[in-house]
C-alpha cells in the first residue's frame, strides 16, 4: 500500500465556483426583496409562518454555503450549531428575561465561539474525515442537551417553551407578520454581510484555500486562521438562524435538532447550488415544502423521496439551482437577441 498520495490527481473537495457566479446582480436582488416584502400582505397567517421558517432555514443553508462553497470544508453538524443558537436564545429569554431581539447577537457570538473552537480540531481533518467528525457532533448533540446536569436550564427532554413577541410601537400587525418582517430584516442584513465577506480579503482567502490549500499557504495565507474563521462565521450565522427558529416555533427540545436537520440543511445547500448564495432560499424552500408533499403521498415516505430527489439533482443538475438559473439567463439572452 502506498503511503504517498498525489494531490494533483486527487478529486477536488468542492468544485471551484468563480466569485462572480456566487451572487445575483443588483436588479434581480431588488426584485427578490420586493417580492419578499409584498407577498406576506396577501396571504394567511399560517403561510406567513411558513415563509418565516423559509427565511430561517435559508439563513442556515447560507451559513453552510459560506463554509462549504466558500472555504471548501464540509459540515454535517450544522444542526448542533443551530441547536446551540436556539437554546441560547430560549434560555436568555425565559430564564433571564432578556428581550428577544437582544438574544440574537448573543446567540451569534456564542455560536461563533463554539464553531471557532470546533474548527480547531477540524483543522487537522479534511474531506471525509471532517464530514465524519461533524456527523458525530450532530448525533451527539441531542444527548448532550438532555443531560441531567443542565436540566434546570435546558428543561431536559421536555424542552423550553418560548413566548412569541408582539409587534412593537403598537404597529397594527399580527405576531406572525411582525416576526416575518423582523426575520426578513435580519436575513437581508446577514445576506449583505455574507456577500461582502466573500468579496473581501477574507473571502478571497477562503476561496484560495478551497481551490488549493498548499498553493494558498504558499501565497502567504494563514490557512489555519481562515479555516477556523470560516467555521466560526458559519456557526455564528447558523446560531442566529437557530435563535430565530426558537422564537418562531416558540419551543425548543433536544429532539428537534437531530442529524435529520443537519442532513436537511446539507441537502438544501446541494439543491440550491454549492457556492451560490441566492440558491440558499431555493434549497430552503425545497427542504420545507418537499417533505410536506411527500408525506401527503404516503406517510413515512419523505426520507425516500428526499433521497431519490437528491440523486436526481446530483445526476441531472449537479450545480443545483445555479445551473437552472444560468440556463434560464441564457435563454432570456437569446430571446432578446431575436
Amino acid at each position, binding site marked *: 500500500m502506498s503511503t504517498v498520495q498525489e494531490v494533483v490527481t486527487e478529486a477536488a473537495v468542492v*468544485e471551484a465556483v468563480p466569485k462572480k457566479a456566487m451572487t445575483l446582480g443588483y436588479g434581480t436582488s431588488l426584485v427578490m426583496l420586493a417580492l419578499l416584502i409584498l407577498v406576506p400582505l396577501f396571504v394567511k397567517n399560517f403561510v406567513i409562518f411558513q415563509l418565516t421558517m423559509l427565511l430561517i432555514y435559508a439563513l442556515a443553508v447560507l451559513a453552510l454555503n459560506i463554509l462549504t462553497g466558500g472555504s471548501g470544508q464540509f459540515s454535517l453538524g450544522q444542526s448542533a450549531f443551530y441547536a446551540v443558537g436556539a437554546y441560547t436564545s430560549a434560555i436568555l429569554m425565559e430564564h433571564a428575561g432578556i428581550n428577544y431581539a437582544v438574544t440574537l447577537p448573543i446567540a451569534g457570538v456564542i455560536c461563533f465561539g463554539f464553531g471557532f473552537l470546533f474548527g480547531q480540531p477540524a483543522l487537522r481533518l479534511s474531506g471525509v474525515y471532517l464530514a465524519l467528525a461533524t456527523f458525530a457532533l450532530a448525533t451527539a448533540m441531542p444527548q448532550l442537551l438532555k443531560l441531567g446536569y443542565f436540566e434546570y436550564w435546558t428543561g431536559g427532554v421536555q424542552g423550553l417553551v418560548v413566548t412569541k413577541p408582539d409587534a412593537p410601537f403598537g404597529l397594527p400587525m399580527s405576531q406572525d407578520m411582525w416576526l416575518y418582517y423582523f426575520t426578513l430584516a435580519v436575513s437581508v442584513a446577514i445576506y449583505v454581510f455574507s456577500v461582502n465577506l466573500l468579496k473581501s480579503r477574507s473571502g478571497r482567502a477562503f476561496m484560495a484555500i478551497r481551490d488549493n490549500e498548499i498553493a494558498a499557504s504558499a501565497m502567504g495565507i494563514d490557512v489555519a486562521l481562515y479555516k477556523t474563521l470560516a467555521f466560526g462565521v458559519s456557526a455564528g450565522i447558523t446560531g442566529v438562524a437557530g435563535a430565530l427558529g426558537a422564537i418562531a416555533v416558540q419551543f425548543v427540545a433536544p429532539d428537534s435538532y437531530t442529524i435529520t436537520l443537519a442532513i436537511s440543511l446539507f441537502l438544501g445547500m446541494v439543491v440550491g447550488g454549492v457556492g451560490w448564495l441566492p440558491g440558499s432560499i431555493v434549497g430552503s424552500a425545497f427542504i420545507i415544502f418537499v417533505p410536506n408533499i411527500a408525506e401527503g403521498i404516503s406517510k413515512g415516505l419523505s426520507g425516500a423521496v428526499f433521497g431519490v430527489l437528491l440523486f436526481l439533482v446530483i445526476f441531472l443538475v449537479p450545480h443545483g439551482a445555479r445551473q437552472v438559473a444560468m440556463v434560464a439567463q441564457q435563454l432570456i439572452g437569446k430571446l432578446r437577441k431575436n
Partner: protein
Amino acid sequence: MELFTNQVLAGIATGAIYACMALAVVMIYQAIDHLNFAQGEMAMFSTFIAWQLMQWGVPYWGAFLLTLVFSFCGGIAIERLLFKPLAKAPILTNVAGFIALYAIINSSAGLIWDFTIKQFPTPFGSSPFLGSQLISTHQAGMIGVTLVLLVLLFFFFRFTRMGLAMRAAASLPESARLVGINTSWMIALGWGMAAAIGSIAGMMIAPVVFLEPNMMLGVLIYGFAAAVLGGLTSPFGAVIGGFLVGIFENLAGTYIPGIGNELKLPIALALIITVLVVKPAGLFGRPIVKRV
C-alpha cells in the same frame, strides 16, 4: 479489581459489535477511499431480509447464506448504478450520494417492515458462556465470528491474486490499470464485500439491540470511532479498535461519575475527535504523505 475485570470482559463483548461494523467501514474505505455513511443502513436492510426469510420458514443458516449473497449482489448493484458515475465527481457530491442512500434505505425499510421493534434469533443461544454471567454464548459467538472474519480477510488480501489486485486498485489506481487490473470492477467488488460483512455485523448485532430501522445509528458512530481509532487503512486495527472502544465505553461508564447510557454518543464523538487530532492515522494505520 473484580469489578474492573468484569467491566473489561463486558466491554469486549460489546466491542465485538463495534469491531464487526468497523471491519465493514474499513473494507469500503480501502476500496473507494470514502467513508460510507449509509453502511449502517445497508447492514440494517440486510438484517431485515434475513428476518423476512426466517419468517417465511427458511432455517437460520440458510437465511444467513442467502442474505450474504443478497447483500453482496446488492452492494455491487448500488455501486454500478449509483456511484460508478460519481467516481470522478468532487468529494462533496459523493458525500451527498451517501446521505441520499442513507435516507432512501432507512425510509423504505420503515415503509416495508414498519418501525416496531422485532426479535432476531441467535444461532448460539443466550445461556451464560462457560459459567460466566458476563458473557453470553451469543456474545462469545459474535467475538468468534468477528475473529474468523478477520482471519479470512487477512488471507484474502495477503495471499490471493484478487486480494492483491484490490489493494493495488485502491492505493494506486493509475498504475494498477497499467498492469491490467480492472480497477472499476475491483471497486464494485469492494462494495459487495463491505455490504456482505455489514450484513454479518447486522445479523450478529440484531439479537442484542433488537431489529428496527434506526438500530444502526449508534452502532455506526461507534463503528466509525473504532475504525478511526484502529486506523482506517487496517482491518486488524479496526477489530482491535472495536474491542478497545467497547472496553473504554464500559470503563468510562463505571468509573467516571455522571456518564451513563445517556452520554454514549458524546463519548464516541470525543473519542473520534481526540484520535483524529492526536494520531490521525490511528493506532495501526499508515500515515499518508501528500505530494504536490
